[in-house]
């Protein structure tokens, strides 16, 4: 159990930030897609910049570095492809632009006791299952 504690704490920080920054807000997502505020773009750009600098630092200096549980750190590559990323992204984006919640904020809002977010989660599980069932039939 103890080895999972760091993940619980990291996840708690993530959920806390999603709510405090209002990235888990339908209002902020509509505002973002209509370019009416810099707020969400600021979050995304500064998050990517932070991730970029820190992972490049790990790549440059990290050869001797190991994770807390003793593994050597390597940054995994996403499988090659194009269609699945574009079509999948489009499908997800259409849902996101309507209900203003992507998967992280869904979990964060379920934590606040939102029945609506629970309905989104139930839908997302069914959508995930549908993809698993139709995987061979959709273009990749």
């Amino acid at each position, binding site marked *: 159990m103890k080895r999972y504690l760091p*993940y*619980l704490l*990291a*996840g*708690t*920080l*993530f*959920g*806390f930030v*999603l*709510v405090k*920054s*209002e990235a888990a807000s*339908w*209002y902020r*997502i*509509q505002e973002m*897609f*209509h370019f*009416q505020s810099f*707020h969400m*773009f*600021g*979050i*995304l750009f*500064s*998050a*990517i910049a*932070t*991730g970029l600098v*820190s992972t490049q630092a790990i790549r440059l200096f990290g050869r001797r570095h190991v*994770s807390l549980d003793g593994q050597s750190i390597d940054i995994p590559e996403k*499988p090659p*492809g194009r269609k699945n*990323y*574009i*079509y*999948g*992204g*489009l499908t*997800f*984006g*259409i*849902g996101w*632009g309507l*209900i203003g919640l992507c*998967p992280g904020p869904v*979990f*964060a809002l379920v*934590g*606040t006791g*939102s*029945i*609506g977010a629970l*309905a*989104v989660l139930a*839908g*997302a599980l069914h959508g995930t*299952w549908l993809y*698993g069932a139709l995987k061979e039939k959709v273009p990749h």
Partner: protein
Amino acid sequence: MNTLIEALYAPWPWYVAGPLIGLMVPLMLFIGNRSFGISNNLRHLCAITQPRQVEVDFFKYDWKEHTWSLVFVIGTALGGFLAGVVFANPHPVALSAAALAMIHSWGFAAPSGNLVPVELFTPSVRNLTFLFAAGVLVGFGTRYAGGCTSGHAITGLSTLQLASVYAVIGIFTGGLISSWLLAPQLLQ
């Protein structure tokens, strides 16, 4: 001390929140050489609950190896509870004037204290059906694309992966289509 407590209740500016979210990428690598991403958990939850009679291959794997990831999203929900209930912001979302005017034209009132509008999230049959249906798109799309905002836009772009560039182009295009063309019609 008082300012610290006030900061826990207040909304956080992008330059505090963004770097903290970005730090999840090296943090997960540091904790256990893991790739930061949320939507994989939807697959794990399907793998846990799939009945034996159904047996879709995509969900036949040892989900217990991904317990760390499920623990992470339990934490995300806990963090949501702490930030949204225990340390709830007493003020409504401070939307820009342009966004306020837009949602008014869609028939939505100004934010009243919740992160999500009551017009869309009050648990009526119509709302829950709509949220479920859009959730299906989110679940299908994220697994089709192999990631969501966290796995592609944050982890993927910050580790310079072409796959994530495609995914983010798709995600943003889809979001623009639905928030400009569909939302004003469907949410009325």
